[in-house]
């Protein structure tokens, strides 16, 4: 989603030391990647990354607990919803949800249980939080995963084309188009798509469903088609606002790569331009892009909140928004933890895998 992704234009891959001035993600972590050729060094490096991730995860757990305690609203009052409840009943409910304990005790209890995957019971749904998340997770993964694959392929392809024809009219149009879509608020794009392609305007008929994930009246292969049909507009929206990031990184790393001597050599050998690009330049330029891919995967999950809201998609984003307005603390905390840890895990994965992929870093 655009508002989420804009900083990444300048952010570079999170967790990666940015040295270039705000340019797209630089190639790998020069200051941190293992220069040593030994496996032991790599393992040490990987262990360090994993330990760092563990610390970050714990920090997120702490934040998720304390940040949302600030939300005004007594959860017990919310649960009773204005009905006449005796003081004893309120006390019992407080006990049931552990709200009668001092804050630090609530906190240690929360951390202890979270480690075992128990995030408590949702106030509004009266069901284990982990079950609610389990119900919504597949929908989010389906939507974001599909969009991710498409915008990655699209971004890499267009980015490579653009870099190869750097400065041409094609490059300019390509980049300008991507940047324009990138500046568009995703929810607005989604609403416009609903007006034009779903409700239908003037001569345009309504081609796609207005929202939801399935119509609930189909089974088997028809259900698969039904879900795919519902997915088209949300996926277009996500892809449109997200692919620019991949495009720009791919473009600039390929530009870097094109200055390299070996390319000149390859061309001097008489290889066709297109072949040089496909066989030599693109694979090398892919490396920094891979780092970005992981980061994208992490942020897109949280970034789908708006698109899920606009298209009534039954995923985590909608659940989060719904939980915030109650406020359904256990659910909000757990979702916040899920969103943040998705990013942390993906970043760590990128850090750990990167040296294995880059032949120049080599082991």
């Amino acid at each position, binding site marked *: 989603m655009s508002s989420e992704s804009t900083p990444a234009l300048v*952010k570079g891959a*999170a967790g990666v030391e940015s040295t270039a001035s705000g340019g797209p993600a630089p190639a790998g972590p020069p200051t941190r990647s293992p220069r040593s050729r030994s496996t032991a060094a790599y393992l040490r490096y990987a262990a360090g990354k994993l330990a760092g991730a563990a610390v970050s995860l714990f920090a997120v757990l702490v934040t998720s607990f304390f940040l949302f305690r600030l939300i005004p609203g007594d959860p017990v009052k919310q649960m009773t919803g204005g009905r006449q409840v005796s003081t004893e009943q309120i006390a019992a409910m407080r006990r049931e949800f552990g709200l009668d304990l001092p804050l630090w005790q609530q906190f240690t209890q929360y951390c202890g249980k979270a480690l075992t995957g128990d995030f408590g019971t949702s106030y509004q749904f009266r069901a284990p939080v982990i079950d609610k998340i389990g119900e919504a997770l597949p929908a989010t993964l389906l939507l974001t995963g599909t969009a991710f694959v498409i915008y990655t392929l699209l971004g890499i392809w267009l980015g490579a084309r653009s870099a190869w024809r750097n400065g041409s009219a094609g490059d300019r149009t390509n980049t300008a188009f991507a940047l324009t879509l990138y*500046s568009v*608020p995703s929810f607005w*794009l989604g609403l416009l798509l609903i007006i034009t392609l779903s*409700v239908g305007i003037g001569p345009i008929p309504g081609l796609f469903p207005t929202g939801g994930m399935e119509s609930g009246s189909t089974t088997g292969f028809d259900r698969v088609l039904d879900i795919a049909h519902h997915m088209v507009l949300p996926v277009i929206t996500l892809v449109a606002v997200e692919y620019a990031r991949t495009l720009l990184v791919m473009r600039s790393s390929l530009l870097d790569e094109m200055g390299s001597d070996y390319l000149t050599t390859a061309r001097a050998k008489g290889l066709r331009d297109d072949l040089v690009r496909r066989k030599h330049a693109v694979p090398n330029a892919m490396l920094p892009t891979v780092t970005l891919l992981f980061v994208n995967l992490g942020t897109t999950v949280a970034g789908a909140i*708006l698109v899920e809201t606009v298209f009534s998609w039954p995923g985590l984003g909608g659940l989060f928004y719904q939980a915030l*307005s109650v406020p359904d603390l256990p659910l909000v905390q757990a979702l916040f933890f899920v969103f*943040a840890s998705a990013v942390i895990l993906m970043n760590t994965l990128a850090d750990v895998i990167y040296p294995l992929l880059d032949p120049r870093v080599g082991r």
Partner: protein
Amino acid sequence: MTVTTDKAASPPTDSPRALARARRRQAALRFWRQYRTHRAGLVGLAVLAVIALLALTAPLLVGADSQSVTNAPGGPMEAPSGEFPLGTDQFGRSLLALMLWGTRVSLTVGLLAAFLSVAIGTLIGITAGHFKGWYATVIMRVTDWFLVMPTLVLAIALATVLSRSIWTTILAIGVTTWPTTARLVRAQTLSVESRPYIERSRALGGGHGHIMSRHVLPNVMPLVLAQTTLVISTAILTEATLAFLGLSDPTIVSWGGLLQDAREAGAVSSGNWWYLAPPGLAIAVVALAFTLCGRAIESVLNPKLGVSR
């Protein structure tokens, strides 16, 4: 800076300060000459100038009472016409007038939030780069950690925690977007501080404050400028997002707020695209203009990036 105004007006003398000033003026000129060659950057700048002018003159153009509901001139949700070029909202107010008023709010929020974000980022970046040791380690850990926080989720959480007002929006955006700036500024600070003249200044007795404010800050300013323009476009988009989710002050007319109003009134199902399209377009245009300027500045500072001209 501590330069007095009468000195600033006087012609360059041999004093080191004046020399430095002259050097900076020249650098600025050189910068502008290079910036001018970036067509996209110029387009962005021109668009911004026009929009800023519209925002400043809004009260003259449409009158202060165009936000009043009791004196609304039109019927509810009229289609565009000669009298109301963009139609009317559900109260019968002219959408064009509201758009113009919204420009002020959206730009203000964008600028202030970006300023807050960049200020925090610069402060943290410079200090983390200057003071090494445990301070830098801790502060960069915190930065890293903020960097991985899903920005929107955090901003939504903050906007929910605090009461609904324009300041909440600014704060929510400001405190969630600074880590990128901090990282960039820190890297630049490290490279500036490795230059020999910093060593000399230190030997001559320059304190931490002196080095950071007189030597490092001027050198990271161009980077900060580029960063600011890019953060503004993020901030404007985030403001719209928060308003759209109903997390900003509903009594204030902003572009995101107009989108939220449109959806609440039922513009999507009624096919009233004229209510929905202009605010979103305006957001996209301004965000794009700031991005273009930012990229142009970036490529002037670092030509290797190969931003298309």
